[in-house]
């Protein structure tokens, strides 16, 4: 590359943190280092960055960045990314949104309920959001459905110069939730192919104690509910009944609170001695498992457009992959993977496994097609060059800023006819601190009003409004209750 090498500061988790985005970022930094003087701002100051890339305390990163410096954020939906979310508020740049849902991140990284509620109000049809938001504010109820209905990506979209996602599905989902204008700067860069040194299948099997002639199925990553390991268990049970005799290793950690994988396996006598959970694996051990397997099963339902590092690893190893025919996976070329329909998934998966167990040539053909696809679309230099285009092309794009200056003062005449709809309408479009005067003719009228309607203020305020302070005023033209509100900020 010719010309000056600009500094690029990348806010991201890094290994040894046990999450796929940390591995992705470590690989991506190697590619970006060809274009920029990179530094990685990581909560773990002692994390492992590639050779030549210093790790920086995120709290001091702004001193390196200066005004208008190049910044990249790697954001996922778990608490390990809380510092990235906070950093993108202070130092806007390009954000890679690995998972368009961000509710889990907000819930676990100390974000205020008002920010969550404000984000919910932006991310779904108003009536739906209002209902769920009231459940959350009044009763503390947050269901699993919330994670699908509300993605909380609005703030990230507003505060980023560009947003990178890994699939058209993810981009389309954001567009459907947030509208064309708010997502005009969303670009798709495919997941990257890790530059792996893949061991030979026999060598990897020898290390893992897998018989050379066994038919080995792998699943990988955190055993979340959406990975449909329940379907995998059932399908393997069926496949066993049909004489396929597969072995199965889940190459990842169990999250028993989300899906009790070991317990479910133990319920199936046919899988006894055939299935095991390896737990969290180092990068080398995970590569061994992928290289050793005959088929990688990588399912998602429901899908919110996630991408998969283990799938990229399987492509690199030319392993035959079965994926759900939904979300981002549906975009993968037919032939490069085998797509599993959502309807009738269990018997179809069992049929596929039985067929593949008996047809090594078919497995090899699919695996090779996957590898060729990945080399063409997901190679590190290609992905890094695409990132550079996006970073350079978005430098001058303005980003939204939090509200500045004194909070706006609104006035509503309070009386028996004042309802929450009028208050919501008055507060619409306002974010951050705000003052609302519920005006009355005199203090006697205020007393009457509050006696007639106990809990008046709470009932009037919309869910995203947090009451910071209430003060009774008895001034000319300013008699009533002055409410200091925090309306959150979600872009």
């Amino acid at each position: 590359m010719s010309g000056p090498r600009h500094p690029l500061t990348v806010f991201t988790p890094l290994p040894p943190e046990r999450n796929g985005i940390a591995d992705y970022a470590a690989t991506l930094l190697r590619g970006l280092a060809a274009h920029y003087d990179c530094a990685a701002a990581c909560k773990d100051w002692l994390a492992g960055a590639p050779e030549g890339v210093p790790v920086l305390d995120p709290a001091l990163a702004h001193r390196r960045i200066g005004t208008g410096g190049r910044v990249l954020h790697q954001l996922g939906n778990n608490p390990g990314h809380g510092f990235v979310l906070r950093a993108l508020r202070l130092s806007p740049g390009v954000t890679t949104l690995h998972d368009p849902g961000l509710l889990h991140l907000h819930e676990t990284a100390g974000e205020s309920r008002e920010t969550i509620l404000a984000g919910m109000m932006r991310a779904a049809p108003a009536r739906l959001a209002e209902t769920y938001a009231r459940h959350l504010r009044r009763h503390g109820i947050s269901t699993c459905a919330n994670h699908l209905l509300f993605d909380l990506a609005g703030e990230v979209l507003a505060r980023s110069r560009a947003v990178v996602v890994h699939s058209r599905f993810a981009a389309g989902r954001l567009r459907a939730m947030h509208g064309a204008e708010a997502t005009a700067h969303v670009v798709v860069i495919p997941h990257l192919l890790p530059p792996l040194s893949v061991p030979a299948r026999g060598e990897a099997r020898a290390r893992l104690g897998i018989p050379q002639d066994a038919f080995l199925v792998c699943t990988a990553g955190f055993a979340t509910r959406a990975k449909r390991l329940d379907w995998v268990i059932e399908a393997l049970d069926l496949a066993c009944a049909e004489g396929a005799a597969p072995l199965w290793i889940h190459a990842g950690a169990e999250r028993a609170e989300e899906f009790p994988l070991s317990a479910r396996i133990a319920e199936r006598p046919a899988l006894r001695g055939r299935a095991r959970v390896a737990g969290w694996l180092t990068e080398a051990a995970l590569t061994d498992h992928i290289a050793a397997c005959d088929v990688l099963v990588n399912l998602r339902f429901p899908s919110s457009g996630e991408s998969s590092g283990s799938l990229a690893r399987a492509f690199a190893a030319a392993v035959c992959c079965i994926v759900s025919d939904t979300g981002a996976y549906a975009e993968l070329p037919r032939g490069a993977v085998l797509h599993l329909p959502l309807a009738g998934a269990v018997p179809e998966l069992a049929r596929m496994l039985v067929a593949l167990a008996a047809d090594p040539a078919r497995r090899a053909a699919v695996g090779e097609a996957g590898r060729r696809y990945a080399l063409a679309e997901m190679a590190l230099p290609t992905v890094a060059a695409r990132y550079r285009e996006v970073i350079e092309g978005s430098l001058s794009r303005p980003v939204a800023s939090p509200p500045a200056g004194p909070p706006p003062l609104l006035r509503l005449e309070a009386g028996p006819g004042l309802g929450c709809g009028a208050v919501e309408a008055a507060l619409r479009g306002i974010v951050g601190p705000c003052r609302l005067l519920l005006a009355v003719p005199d203090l006697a009228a205020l007393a009457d009003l509050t006696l007639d309607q106990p809990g008046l203020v709470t009932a009037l305020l919309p869910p995203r409004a947090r009451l910071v302070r209430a003060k009774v005023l008895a001034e000319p033209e300013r008699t009533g209750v002055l409410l200091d509100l925090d309306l959150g900020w979600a872009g």
Partner: protein
Amino acid sequence: MSTCDRPGAGAILPSRWRGKADAGAAPLLAALLARTLPGMQALDLGLPVPRLFPWLPGTLCGLADPAALPAGERTLLGRFRQRGGTRPLFGFDPAADAALQAGAPSVWGEAAERLVFLPAAALAAGFAGSGPPEPLFLVPGEAGELPDAERGRIILLLGSTAQVDRYDLLVPPDRTATLFEALRMAGGALAEAAGGRWQVGGRMISPRMASLAVLAEASAGFAPPLSIPAETLVHDLPVQSAEGRLATGPAARLRLLLGALPPREWRLRISLCTDTLGLAAPVLFLEGMRHPARIRPGSEGLTWLEAVIRPAGGHALVLGLAMPPEAGPGGLALTGIELLP
């Protein structure tokens, strides 16, 4: 052997004149004021480039208008606690700030004298009526006049003959002559004690105005060693220093606000209690980046983490310590920091 001339300040104006002072002469300024005003308590609102902190022991620091800082810097400074971890920096806690501005004895203690460093004279209005004793104000040269107040002004020209910083000490008018004389005496004594060649001199220009120059003839200026005990470390942990130690507890990281150091080479020494060191030494960070350092045995019961640093200036230096996982969960204890020229 020092030489102390006593010309008028105007006679020794150097070729390199810095009307707007940075931290280059901060050690000399602090030493001069400490000699002149024993028992003084200082508040330095110069962040991100403080002048008295950390050179004047016990100085509280902060800034008058955090909202004017870039958001990242404001967030960073908002993390820190001073007086061993008991107080936020000035500017980040309206209640605590109000007590300081009002001259509350609970904050200022029994200080014989109160000195406030302000980046602009107009900010003194916030401290109006906060006596007795009426505070002295120190401002960088050309920082303007105090609003609505009659003040004497003592112009201080400090540093070296190669590089001069100007500060103005704004004092009650009737104390101008007394304080000038005390400063002049202290400057002379300081030069004698420091050794080498100095130019020290000044005069009363009028009953309410004086000027004093204290300039080293060595281009490196005045750079004494600095020792910051645990009790006065400014850090970002939710703990307080006690019994001469700052114990990190289970925290894996610690940030220390060091202030703005004169831009030259310093030997940094962090004193760690040997009995709290685990199997691995902490890793030193300077301005957020890993910095080469070495561990060596210190005085009794202490281990020293030492490094050579060359601060760039322009903002308050931040040190970091990261404890590797092998260091164990108990955390470290620090007894203080030294900066050796």
